[in-house]
């Protein structure tokens, strides 16, 4: 055993795959410790908040400030609301409105703004201007008006006793707060999803569910495949014919179609994560049966098997002690592949809306399903689906790497 393990860990591919998988598993264990709580809790009220650190605006007002005089602060402030294309649009509007622009350069912000404030009027309807363009100029004008206000911003509050508006504090352009001093900040490394849930937290939890689904599916498929393969291969004859007949029927029916039909007919209220896992397992045992059978056929006429037969050992004992150990490495490899394809199958099913019902647990497929239903791929919310795709790819890639590594160790024809 020790020797086998050493051999296995000598394979570069296996080690690479193992490391990726171990990293994912570690994340699943460690992250909930750092960020505990219900992964399905909605923290954001809107949809798809982008990744980053959020600072409570309310709390910053009461936070102690430092004064910094940064030379480029004003420019940055302006650049945030007045992009180069905005400048072009402003010049276009002024030209259309027949304002004299001679001697005004596009980069001469001060002059441009002066001209703009002097001439812009949202009641002017320029010829050929669409509603969308008019709205754009109104928005631009509003943000320019807001930005060019004085150096101080006054925060006011309503006195609950007198209902009078009282000044609460003044904020200078040069006031800065240390993020560490603000009472409430929230870091969302992967933003929020369509329900306003923390994507990273959900992803870590979904990873666990999906691996669990993969394991159950893999166990079911491997168990059925192994059992039927062993029986068919060892018994031969009529038993082999019957088992292979059934297996062949399942081979020609695409298993994914079968999977869709079963999931659909189960109905959504019956589809828990475990049920889906079992259904996936029940539809993917076919090729394990076929390959186990062919391995067993090549084993069953070996001398040590014949010797056991002559010694009068039971069928069970022969299979368990004389055949199974010889194909064990193969079965383990098949199992790993079954797990990885089980995870993929769940993702595919959920993407079609046939996955586990949604309120109970997050799965990788369900996360993708909701992201797609909310058009995350159209509105640029990559954080809602891309990390999920990467995770699925990571899991199945690591498993396939481990499988190839094991193959190199155990398959004599591939051995160096």
């Amino acid at each position: 055993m020790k020797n086998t393990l050493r051999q296995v860990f000598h394979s570069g591919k296996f080690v690479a795959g193992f490391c990726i998988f171990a990293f994912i598993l570690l994340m699943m264990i460690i992250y909930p410790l750092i960020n505990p709580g219900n992964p399905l809790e909605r923290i954001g009220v809107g949809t798809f908040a982008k990744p980053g650190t959020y600072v409570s605006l309310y709390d910053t007002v009461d936070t102690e400030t430092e004064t910094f005089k940064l030379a480029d602060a004003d420019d940055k402030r302006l650049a945030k609301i007045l992009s180069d294309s905005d400048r072009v649009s402003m010049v276009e509007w002024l030209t259309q409105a027949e304002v004299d622009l001679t001697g005004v350069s596009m980069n001469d912000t001060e002059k441009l703004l002066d001209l703009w404030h002097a001439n812009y009027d949202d009641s002017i309807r320029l010829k050929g201007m669409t509603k969308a363009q008019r709205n754009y100029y109104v928005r631009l004008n509003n943000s320019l008006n807001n930005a060019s206000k004085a150096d101080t911003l006054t925060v006011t509050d309503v006195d609950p006793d007198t209902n009078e508006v009282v000044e609460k504090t003044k904020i200078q352009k040069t006031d800065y707060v240390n993020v560490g001093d603000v009472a409430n900040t929230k870091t969302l490394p992967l933003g929020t999803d369509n329900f306003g849930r923390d994507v990273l937290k959900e992803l870590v939890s979904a990873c666990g569910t999906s691996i669990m689904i993969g394991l159950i599916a893999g166990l079911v498929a491997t168990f059925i495949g192994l059992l039927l393969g062993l029986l068919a291969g060892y018994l031969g004859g009529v038993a082999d014919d019957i088992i292979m007949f059934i297996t062949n029927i399942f081979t020609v029916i695409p298993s994914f179609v079968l999977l869709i039909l079963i999931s659909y007919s189960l109905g959504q209220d019956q589809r828990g994560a475990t049920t889906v896992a079992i259904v996936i397992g029940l539809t993917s045992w076919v090729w394990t049966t076929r390959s186990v059978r062919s391995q067993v056929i090549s084993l069953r006429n070996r001398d040590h098997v014949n010797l056991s037969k002559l010694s009068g050992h039971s069928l069970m004992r022969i299979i368990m002690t004389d055949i199974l150990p010889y194909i064990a490495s193969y079965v383990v490899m098949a199992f790993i592949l079954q797990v990885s394809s089980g995870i993929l199958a769940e993702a595919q099913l959920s993407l079609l809306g046939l996955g586990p019902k949604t309120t109970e647990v997050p799965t990788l497929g369900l996360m993708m399903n909701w992201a797609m239903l909310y058009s995350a791929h159209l509105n640029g919310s990559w954080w809602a689906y891309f990390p999920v795709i990467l995770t699925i790819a990571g899991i199945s890639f690591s498993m396939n790497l481990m499988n190839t590594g094991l193959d190199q160790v155990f398959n004599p024809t591939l051995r160096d």
Partner: protein
Amino acid sequence: MNTRKLVSLVIALAMVMTMCLSASAETVTELPRNESLYFAGQQWGAVATWNPIGVNQNNAMACTAQAIGSRTLMFETLYMYNFMDGSMTPLLADGDYAWNDGMTEMTVKLNKAAKWSDGTAITSADVVATWDIANKIGNGTATNYAAFISAIEAVDDNTILIKSALTEAGAPVNPLKVVEFLGNAFIVQKAWIETVAARNNDDATAILNDKADDVVWSGPYTKYISNDQQVVLIRDDNYWGQDASMWGKLPVPKYIVHTIFADNAAGETALKAGEIDVCQQFIGNIQDLWLKDGLPISTYMEEAPYQVCLTMPTAFFNQNIAACQNVTLRKAIALAVDYDSIIANAMTNQSPTFTDVPRSLMNPTEGEQALYDHDAVKDLQWAGNDIEGAIKLLDEAGIVDTDGDGWRELDGEKITLNACCPNGWTDWQASMEIVADAGKNIGVDITTLYPEWSVYQTVFTNPSQTEYAIFMYSPDGAGPAQPWGRIRQFMGGDLVGVENNWTGNWGQYTNARADEILAAIPVTTDEAELKALYTEAVEIYLTEVPSFSLMYRPAVFHEVNESVWTNYPDATDGRNIPPADCTDGYGIAALYELELVNP
């Protein structure tokens, strides 16, 4: 070997040929872009029939008859309803309609200029024939109005008399529904109706399903191309409405094109690309299209809620399920639901909140809101997410967790409810998720269930179903008969037990007082009295909670891309054209005023 090669080559060639052939059969006809107005979000799947007196036409552009204003591109109604101000603009009619004193008879004059596409005049005989055939074969017009109109008679060639159906006391059942009829029912030519009836041997089912390829129309457009890729209507340049008594001109676009998309995402992509001009789809965070992406797309209003909300998708409690008969439980669930989340999330703020517009039986328009006394029902209102309040209600009513499994029991049995809506209706699904969460927060086990629409529609319209406990549907938006119609949809006892019920009260709720109010409203003319009735209805609704609205929503979404066309209706333009996708009710007026961005 060579023969094999040859055979495979031939087969490959044959396959390529078949692909080319089938592809050419499906080619989308190229139309001049600056003469065509492209639509999305109305038509799904290929058109079935062009039959204005039929059923199941699946023909959104030509045969959509609805209370918020029928789509009068090909067939026309007597009046055009404007849901912005509730006004009725004459279309086939001439001038305003006139009631007699008891509102038992209404006189409508027809426009003498109105002509059918075959050049014959539109007369009272056509209106009478339309009403008669509707009742004979039982189409949508009959289902909606037979209870409210007893007969339509011709006074002379251009004058018709519509008689209200009367109660036993001799009062009209509901004059509001008679007014609604004017803007809803398509008027169809008598001669054509006779042809259809004759060729189907007067068989009702056959007439309802007649393909009607030879149909005679009166509207500004007619059918041009129709397949599973697109539906194209072409302008009828002989349209009678050019007459100075109507529009005085033809609508601007020569072609009305509806591309048939597989799903909302495809339609949204096409709208963004400028391939679609007018889009009737829910698009989440619509403001990002102009704020972030800088696309020339806009809605009716520049600020949230961006659209004119006329209806409120509602979760109904199924009274066939024992737990749902418990008022306290109903109210507790409704209290616990986080509506702000639903509005921010499912509707991406394209709806006013229940703090802006407190819940009632009225839609959020100013007109309907003014109908009831807000202060009188103030204490009954709830804004939602009141977990403590809901828990307190349940605890006080003795609906508690007795066996310690974390879920409450009612009469010794664990309360298990499902929250259902059709699969793929994402904003509704998100709402149901939030309702299920509310259940978890107050210890009531609610799970979500999303059947396919084909299944859903057969279950929720079945009056004895017990499969869905809490399920969603939308009451009607605006219309001349609102909010009476909506009150009936929420609490109308006459709808209980109706098989194949598409009209309303899907939860089978009954309340004797509500029925009395429903009977009284249509015949009450005194405003103070009317207000008292409406207020009482709201009071019953908020106390009894037979259902709870989850958000406000537009009756039609209206998003336009100004890459090719401009001068669409706008909240600030003072033209009073409703944002009804340039097609519905008085919204069609927009078609006459469109302009090209680059003429």
